[in-house]
C-alpha cells in the first residue's frame, strides 16, 4: 500500500512498487488527464508536480511518491473551473488536439509559482521537455507572457 498526498488529499493505492505513477493515475485512480505518449521522459505529456516540481510520471516508480505530494492537472482548479493559466491559454485559442496540454499546464504552473514574471527565454526553457505537435508553441508562450504581465494571479491553485 503506497500512501501519498494527491491533489491535496491523502490517498493510498495498492500497486506494484515499480509501476509507474502514470499508469497508477490512469488505470487505478481514473485520472486520465496525465498522458503517456512516449514512456521515456522526452514528450512531457505525463508531467505532474511532485512536491511542486515538474516530474515525468511515466518514469516515476509509484513507490517513490510515498509520503510526498503529487499534483495532477485535474487538481489545479476545483469543480471543472480553470486556473488563471488555463483561462489564459483558452483565451488565446492556444489548444488544438489537446494531448500535450495537461503536461504543458503542469510545467507552466510550476514555472509561474517559482517565477511569477518569467521572460520569454525562461518560458521556452521551462517548456523544452513538453512536445506539442499541433500548435507550434508560439501562442502558448505569448499567453504565459501576457498572463504574467497582467499580474492577475491567484496564489495556490
Amino acid at each position, binding site marked *: 500500500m503506497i500512501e501519498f498526498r494527491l491533489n491535496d488529499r491523502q490517498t493510498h493505492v495498492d500497486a506494484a*512498487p*515499480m509501476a*509507474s505513477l502514470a499508469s497508477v493515475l490512469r488505470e487505478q485512480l481514473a485520472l486520465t488527464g496525465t498522458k503517456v505518449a512516449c*514512456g*521515456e*521522459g*522526452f514528450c*512531457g505529456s505525463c*508531467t505532474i508536480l*511532485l512536491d511542486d*516540481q*515538474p*516530474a*515525468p510520471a*511515466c*518514469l*516515476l*516508480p509509484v*513507490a*517513490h511518491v510515498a509520503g510526498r505530494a503529487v499534483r495532477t492537472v485535474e487538481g489545479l482548479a476545483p469543480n471543472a473551473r480553470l486556473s488563471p493559466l488555463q483561462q489564459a491559454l483558452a483565451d488565446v485559442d492556444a489548444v488544438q488536439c489537446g494531448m500535450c496540454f495537461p503536461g504543458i499546464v503542469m*510545467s507552466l504552473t510550476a514555472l509561474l509559482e517559482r517565477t511569477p514574471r518569467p521572460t520569454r527565454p525562461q518560458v*521556452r*526553457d*521551462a517548456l*523544452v*521537455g513538453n512536445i506539442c505537435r499541433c500548435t507550434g508553441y508560439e501562442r502558448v508562450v505569448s499567453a504565459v507572457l501576457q498572463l504574467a504581465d497582467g499580474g492577475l494571479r491567484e496564489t495556490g491553485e
Partner: protein
Amino acid sequence: MLSAVEDSAPLAGGTWIMRRRGDGPPPSLYVSLQQIPTLRNLELGASPRFGACVTHSSLASALSDADELAGLRDAAGRSANPAVRNMATIGGGLAADAFPSSDLVPALLALEAAVETAGGQSLPLEAFLERRGGREHLITAVLVPARPARSAHARLLLRAGGEYPVAIVSVVDGGRGRLRVAVGSVTSVAFRWLALEARVGADDSPSSVAAAAQELLPTLAPRDDVDAPAWYRAAVLPTLLERALTRLHDQPPA
C-alpha cells in the same frame, strides 16, 4: 540488501531504469535508495561533496552562487529537460550503462572528481568509468577535491534544447595557468583530454586551444551513431572548445 539478494539492483531516480533500456531481463528486485537521507546530502565547503541521490536540479540550485563551479552548475542545470532534471540523480547518471552523452561526467572529470562507494572507498572518476561494468560498488557520493578558479561547460545540440548533446566540452581553470579539458559524447566514454592540455600549455586563449584541438583531431576515435556521424562530433570540437574557453575567460577568477 543488495548484497543479500543475488539478482538485485539499486534504484535511484529511475529515469534510466524505467525506460527499460539495456539488454537482458531486468533484475528480480530493485532496491530503492530514496529512503537513505545521507545520499541526498550536499556539502559545499572547500572540497564539495554531493550525495549520490542528489538530483540534477538540486545540484544546480545549490551551486547558484558558486560561480567558480559554473561548469558543473551548467552541466547539471541544462541537461535533458526540466522534469527529468528533477528526478535524475548524480549517482544514477554515473552508474547508467551506455550513456555516453552525460553532461555531468565531463564536468566532473574536469574537476578531477572522485567517486565514493559503499564501504568507504574512493576512486578517481576515470577509474570508476572503466570499471563500471562490474558494479560491485554502490556509489554513495561524488567528491570534488578542490574548488577551481573558474570553470565552464559547453554543449552542442542539434536542436536548441531538450536533448542530449552530440558533443560536450567542460573546462576548468585550476589556478596558476592549469587548464583542464574534458570531452563528452564524442567518444563512447567521456575523457580528460590530457594531450590537448599538454599541447596548449600556458596559452589557453580560445583560438589557440581550438587550433591545438584541430591538430589533435586525428588522434581521437569518435563514435558513430544514429544521432550524428563520428566525423561531425570531432569536426565541431574545436569550435566548441573555443566557445567553452571564451565562456571561461569571460568570468573573473574566484
